[in-house]
């Protein structure tokens, strides 16, 4: 990658040749345009005029988005642009941040997620989350996966089956089937992250949020998680925050580019710049800032 300003047209190919040792599941030749059906997606989560404050600091403003069902949506942008903040609004993890306030509409199948009578536990069961650093519980592999169904009081005929299915779903079963009772901390970082994914899908969510899920992993473990994401997108809606633009280009159907702009008081507020098919964002972005970011001129 000596080329500081690579020709736009060659970006995906360069990535494919140099950065990905594994089989890439999506054709990059037509820049992923075929992955998305034409027109508006079949929406799962809708954001309208989203604003997030941390105390008096406006972190994100004016975000309107529609997340498509069984698609992978990537949120990209420079540090501090509010993409993680937006992600954490989607299953109300921002509730845990003292001083965080969310305004605007966050709708899940049309239901206001922040409305009265909404049980945050039910929200999080349906919209799971995988974190930046693998965070398995200091328990056995089995208990890690069984944790969600147990604490949410899910009615299961056979917990063993639930655990096995979830581990199959996270492509981890073959590696751990003989040591389910061993501590999750004996697993490698990549395995731990797949365990966290298994733990999430054990509660049968509809949406999985991923906050830079590969940033703590080596390239091979990253490749496995990316393969897994493409697989999971057949069943689940996936929304991923990533700093890795190649990753966004490799796995996502749609990409949203955020950036932060300072107001007259010097406060930086994150805004959504462009949200479109991944092929369009990386091939022919409408906004100059998007183009500058993906070509490495800023951010």
């Amino acid at each position, binding site marked *: 990658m000596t080329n500081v300003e690579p020709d736009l047209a060659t970006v995906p190919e360069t990535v494919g040749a140099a950065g990905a040792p594994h089989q890439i599941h999506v054709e990059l030749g037509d820049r992923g345009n075929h992955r998305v059906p034409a027109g508006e997606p079949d929406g799962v989560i809708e954001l309208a005029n989203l604003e997030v404050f941390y105390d008096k600091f406006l972190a994100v403003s004016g975000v309107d988005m529609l997340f498509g069902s069984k698609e992978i949506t990537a949120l990209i942008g420079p540090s501090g642009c509010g993409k993680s903040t937006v992600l954490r609004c989607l*299953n109300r*993890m921002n509730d*845990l941040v*003292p001083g965080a306030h969310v305004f605007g509409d966050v709708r899940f199948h049309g239901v206001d997620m922040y409305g009265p009578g909404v049980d945050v*536990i*039910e929200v*999080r*069961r349906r919209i*799971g*989350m995988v*974190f930046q*650093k693998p*965070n*398995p*519980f*200091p*328990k056995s592999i089995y208990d890690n996966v069984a*944790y*969600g169904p147990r*604490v*949410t009081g899910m009615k299961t005929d056979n917990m063993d089956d639930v655990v096995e299915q979830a581990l199959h779903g996270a492509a981890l079963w073959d590696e751990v089937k003989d040591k389910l009772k061993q*501590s999750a*901390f004996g697993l490698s970082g990549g395995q731990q992250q797949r365990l*966290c994914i298994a*733990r*999430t899908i054990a*509660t049968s969510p509809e949406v999985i949020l991923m906050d830079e899920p590969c940033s703590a992993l080596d390239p091979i473990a990253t490749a496995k998680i990316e393969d897994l994401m493409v697989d999971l997108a057949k069943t689940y809606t996936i929304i991923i925050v990533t700093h890795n633009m190649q990753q966004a280009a490799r796995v996502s159907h749609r990409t949203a580019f955020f950036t932060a702009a300072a107001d007259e008081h010097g406060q930086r507020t994150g805004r959504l710049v462009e949200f479109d098919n991944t092929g369009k964002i990386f091939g022919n972005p409408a906004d100059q800032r998007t183009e500058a970011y993906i070509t490495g001129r800023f951010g």
Partner: protein
Amino acid sequence: MTTSRSTAETAGGRSSGSGRPPAWRGSTIDLGQQHPRYGERVIKVILVGAAWLSVAVTIGIVVSLLAPTVTFFTHVGLGAFLFGTEWTGGFGNKFVWDDKSWGVLPLVVATAIVTVIALAVAVPLGLGAAIYLSEYASERVRKVLKPVLEVLAGIPTVVYGFLALTIFTPILANLVQFNTIHNMLSPGIVMGFMIVPTVASLGEDAMSAVPLALRQGSYALGANRMKTTLRVVFPAALSGIVAAIVLGISRAVGETMIVTIAAGSRAQLTFDPREGAQTMTGFIAQIASGDAPQGSPVYYSLFAVGALLFAVTLLINLASIRLVRKYRQVY
């Protein structure tokens, strides 16, 4: 393995053997120490001295405890001491061994009963406070409450003892029948209150040390705060929590003033907490502050009881280390 390593060494290591010698061979640059650094040495000596002094003091205590204890056991059998049910060490002719009973069980049982009562108060209250402070309280509440709790730990125990005798015992007398003003229930409960800050503060430290990421993982799976606390945070902090409880036990076993004041000085074997009974520490305080002529039997018995107390605390600590290792969840 060996072959590959040695190959690697010849290949990538120093270019010994063939090749020209480096141009700077015979250089006069001196990379040795340029200035003497006395300050560093002095500090090191002081620090090493401090570390060894504390070790030496500990050893000194054990040795000075041992010699009189050995003298005691030349006159009293170990079995008679450990399993005898009557303790009359303070009575009779001060310089005669044979007219007294040296069974330490009454003192041990009294200590155990008071300790159990204290723990029954301190563990639930202390852990409850720890859970509240670590998991429920807002930052502002925690900032006020934790120092207050720690001040509670600084109240002199003699004050607690006085409190037990003059306030708690009369209150309890309305509920249960006491034969004398001295009993084990009241000092036990008050001692429990005394230990609450220790358990709460250390327990809170242990639970706060559990990474936030684990809590987030739990919340993200739909667990509520109680389930997150009990199923994730508490098990992960268990080793620290056990350590907090063990320190509480050690404090209860070794606590002296409260029991001396409120549990009385009658060494009697009883399992009834409404009765007054002398504990090991109570006995030591009473005799050591009274007339125990050096070289008298009761003087030597002080050391024997002290050594037993030391052994009990040591055993509790060792047991707790094993327990913690067994149930520890490393995160």
